[in-house]
């Protein structure tokens, strides 16, 4: 299928590209939809969380922090600005409480909104 060398070698390929679909689009002003397997926002099913701290130990970006206040009370804080969205916390959790949904976490100039208390357990939880 190899054509011999010629002076305008790329011309047939140019024609083929013109007849095919374009691969770029105009700037999308509405938010894009992510595919279902995209590693996005970290969510936790609070009732499953035991406060064991394995996710904290295994996070490579130190984006999770567990503050134990004694008596079965603890808080799990997730720093979205540090998070690398690698999914290791979801893998490490023995309860399967953490999941990464396909929601994109957009940047924001207000950094404090990216710190989220994702599990808050009072005594007896």
């Amino acid at each position, binding site marked *: 299928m190899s054509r011999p060398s010629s002076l305008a070698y790329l*011309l047939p390929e140019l024609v083929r590209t*013109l007849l095919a679909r374009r691969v770029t689009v105009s700037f999308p002003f509405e938010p894009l939809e992510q595919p279902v397997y995209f590693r996005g926002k970290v969510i936790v099913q609070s009732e499953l969380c035991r406060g064991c701290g394995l996710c904290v130990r295994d996070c490579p970006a130190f984006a999770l922090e567990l503050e134990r206040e004694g008596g079965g009370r603890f808080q799990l804080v997730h720093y979205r600005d540090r998070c690398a969205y690698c999914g290791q916390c979801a893998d490490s959790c023995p309860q399967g409480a953490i999941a990464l949904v396909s929601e994109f976490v957009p940047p924001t100039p207000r950094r404090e909104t990216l710190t989220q208390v994702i599990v808050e357990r009072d005594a007896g939880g």
Partner: protein
Amino acid sequence: MISEENVLELTSILFAILIFPGFGFLFVCALGFQWIDRWVVAHLQGRIGPPWFQPLADFIKLMAKEDMLPIGAHERACALLPMVSLAAVLTVALYVPVGGHVVGAFEGDLIVVLVLLSLPAVAYFLAGWLSASVFSVVGGSRALLQYFAYEVPFLMALSGPAILSGSWSISRIAALQSQTVWMVLVQPVGFLLAFVGLIGKLKRSPFDIPKAKSEIGAGPLTEFSGRKLALWHLSLHTKTVVGIFLLVDVFLGGSGGSPTIWGALTFGAKSLLILLALSVAGVLYARLRIDQLTHVGWRVLAPLALLQILFVIWIGA
């Protein structure tokens, strides 16, 4: 005594210089041709290209940006050079008929046009030399080498139609073609050489060696920014327009002899055809090296141009 005819004549000349076919028209054409070129190149590469107002937006943005030069650059000269380049190109536009309309024509204006069209190249080289940056100096010397490589074939190719029509006025050459036959049919090699020379003159791919992005930044214009750069770009794009019009007039019969709407439409169609060919030529090839370009220029293009001139002289006799 200023009579009514004088005032009318003055207004019509001012209209011709400032609006059509002068500066205003050229400005719109420069932006329009740039957009068409970018649109065609984009679609050939599988993209959709910028919106129609992109060249205008680029121009306005550059005019509003900060304008600075490095220490050691010649401030005054660098401020004057883009204006010299733009002035040369706009002066050329006075003598190149657009759709049959021309501001001023005289016997020998082809030579004046060709001389004036080399002024921007000299200004480009000087800009590189005087703006005190390693990249611009290298780019400037490349620009000069490239100028010698394409200018000789270009001049000889454009002299062919002049010799054949027995006149050195562009308007006459264009008008004569509507009575006889298009020059491109008689001297196709000359047209090809003029076309290739135009690519070199406009520093378009594959001859965009002086401003080879991946090698030397932006070549001679590396240190320019703001209004100076806006004027440089404007002069380059106006040179594109004027160069295309020149080729249409000299080789493709101009507006076909009639300064009416029909003539304007044919002129426009021919110009767009050449622009399309320029865009496709830019997309087809990789950039040549400067020594390869001089090799091609002196060993292939110049002899062909010489043969073409001899052929023209022979059939003219």
